[in-house]
């Protein structure tokens, strides 16, 4: 009996660890941010009013959220961030799927080398890699110089400090996060299934949409979430590659916190961003569950 009691305790401990982790590193910070978002900014340390006043009464305000709703700038920025993150996700999927498929179908000896090449950029600091893109995209950077040298253009094209540069930067930065989960699902897929579909009368295209695509769906969903979520709040890429007017929500968040030192408003921006991200996650999961049930 002693052993079962011991193993029970042990089981409880192992289950408790992830919950504890989530509590300390997710729920608690979230509660703090929520608390700050309901305060007023003051010039003090910390720069927001306490939740409880001197008499012990609750002192909260939803002014920050109302401000987000009334100032059109925020709505536009949120929308722009969603569109930008969404397009980068779609492009990552379009680029990543053939790459992941190709890697999964090569000989195992070559496969590990190709995977290494996908992961290799991570060995260099993210910031440096984005800096490198500045060198590529500049008016007198590698791309413009090459095009001018080749005689295709005679004036440099303005790529740097545009939304297009952000789009390139986001796609480049998050492509590996799309490729890796896709590779993991495609690699496990039984090639016999595709042959069986073709044997039963499906052309190559049909067998792809009937077999490969639905079986790769978990990887597609995981990849899209892994790209979309960080791309939504991305700060470095728009800051370095985007122009002063290309406002994305990550940058607004940063500016509110560190430039304007308006912590309550910044917290409200963060909470809304989080809500915006929860929607696609829940939608994807529901969609997946429905499809499972339907079949």
């Amino acid at each position, binding site marked *: 009996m002693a052993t079962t009691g011991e193993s029970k305790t042990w089981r409880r401990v192992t289950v408790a660890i992830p919950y504890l982790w989530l509590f300390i590193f997710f729920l608690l910070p979230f509660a703090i941010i929520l608390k700050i978002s309901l305060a007023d900014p003051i010039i003090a340390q910390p720069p927001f009013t306490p939740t409880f006043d001197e008499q012990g009464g609750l002192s909260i305000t939803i002014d920050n959220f109302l401000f987000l709703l009334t100032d059109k700038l925020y709505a536009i920025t949120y929308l722009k961030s969603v569109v930008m993150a969404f397009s980068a996700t779609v492009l990552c999927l379009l680029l990543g799927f053939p790459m992941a498929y190709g890697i999964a179908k090569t000989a195992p000896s070559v496969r590990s080398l190709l995977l290494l090449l996908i992961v290799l950029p991570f060995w260099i600091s993210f910031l440096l890699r984005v800096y490198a893109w500045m060198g590529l995209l500049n008016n007198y950077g590698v791309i413009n110089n090459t095009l001018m040298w080749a005689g295709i253009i005679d004036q440099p094209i303005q790529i740097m400090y545009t939304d297009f540069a952000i789009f390139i930067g986001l796609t480049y930065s998050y492509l590996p996060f799309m490729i890796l989960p896709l590779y993991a699902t495609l690699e496990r897929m*039984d090639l*016999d*299934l595709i*042959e*069986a*579909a*073709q*044997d*039963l*009368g*499906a*052309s190559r295209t*049909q067998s792809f949409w*009937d*077999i490969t695509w*639905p*079986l790769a769906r978990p990887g597609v969903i995981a990849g899209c979430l892994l790209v979309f979520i960080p791309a939504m709040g991305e700060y470095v890429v728009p800051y370095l590659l985007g122009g002063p007017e290309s406002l994305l929500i990550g940058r607004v968040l940063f500016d509110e916190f560190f430039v304007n030192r308006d912590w309550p408003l910044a917290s409200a921006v963060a909470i809304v961003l989080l809500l915006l991200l929860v929607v696609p996650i829940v939608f994807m999961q529901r969609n997946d569950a429905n499809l499972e049930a339907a*079949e």
Partner: protein
Amino acid sequence: MTKEKRKDFIRIHNVSKHFGDFVAVDDVNLTIGQGELFSILGGSGCGKSTLLRMMAGFETPTGGTIEIDGVDVTALPPYERPVNMMFQSYAIFPHMNVEKNIAYGLRKDGIADNDITKRVDDMLGLVQLGDFRKRKPDQLSGGQRQRVALARALIKEPKVLLLDEPLAALDKKLREQTQFELMNIQDTLGITFVVVTHDQEEAMTLSTRIAVMEKGRFLQVGEPKEIYEYPRSRFVADFIGTINTFEGKVTAAHDDAITVSCPDVVAPVHALRDTDIDIGQEVCVAVRPEKIFISLEQPEDDGAVQIRGVVDDLGYLGNLSLYRIRLETGRMIQVSRQNRRRSAKRFVEWDDEVWVSWRPRSGVVITSED
């Protein structure tokens, strides 16, 4: 095992397949008749699966042509061939239920929905899976999955059904039962079946004819009985069942038999003559274990080949017993004997001196070097 001449249906003409330097299938010729249940039998890597995949269209032959029902299909992609294949892995689509798996081929042909429903119903009945139509593949047993794979391949009523090791994944009892079901289904539908297998017992029970394959070539093609009783090479004799072989020289040739003098057998061996054999030629006489008799006394049959030996080992298998007999020359032979009677006492014991004998007709002469 009907003797009547069947219409030639599949013609494999000088087909080869090379993978780099490796020759998987080496200039093979074969004709399979309509409605046959034909087995290609061989060990792993003999080229049997490659040949099957060429018939299905998954591999293109390096040379030669494949004709099905008078049409050259060599260059056709799999989805345009009048054949369907049952994969060794079954390759059941894991994201579709039983019904959708079976209907897949018909959907790809653009058949009307109500027609599909009817045909799927019929097929579910044939493979006895009516109660499982809504199940997902991961909720099925191995035997049920095998039936889904079979039903899915059969529903398009292909001219030829290709089966890659159809029973290999099933346990022994289920395998035996499924063998007969396969034969019944084949008989009902009249579709030509081509089975690839490494299991000689499976090939023997299922097939109208068997092709024994080794190193990309056919060693012998014939009815199961022919292959078993008259193996033309030592490889075939060994691959299908067990056989005792005695090397020797031909000393005399008669109208219907030859005499072979073997070092292991003191008396000359009479064996049925089949091909042209010269006197003095080195040949091999092969005798199946069940055709050799074992007795404590010298048999009275003068015509029989008789040799003395000692029981070296014996094994009781229930329905029969296996004996390993050491001949006077030290050579080991295997004899099997049916256990017709139940008795506590064994018929012979270890180290008993015995006589082994066989009728001259029981031996086969193998001239091939293989």
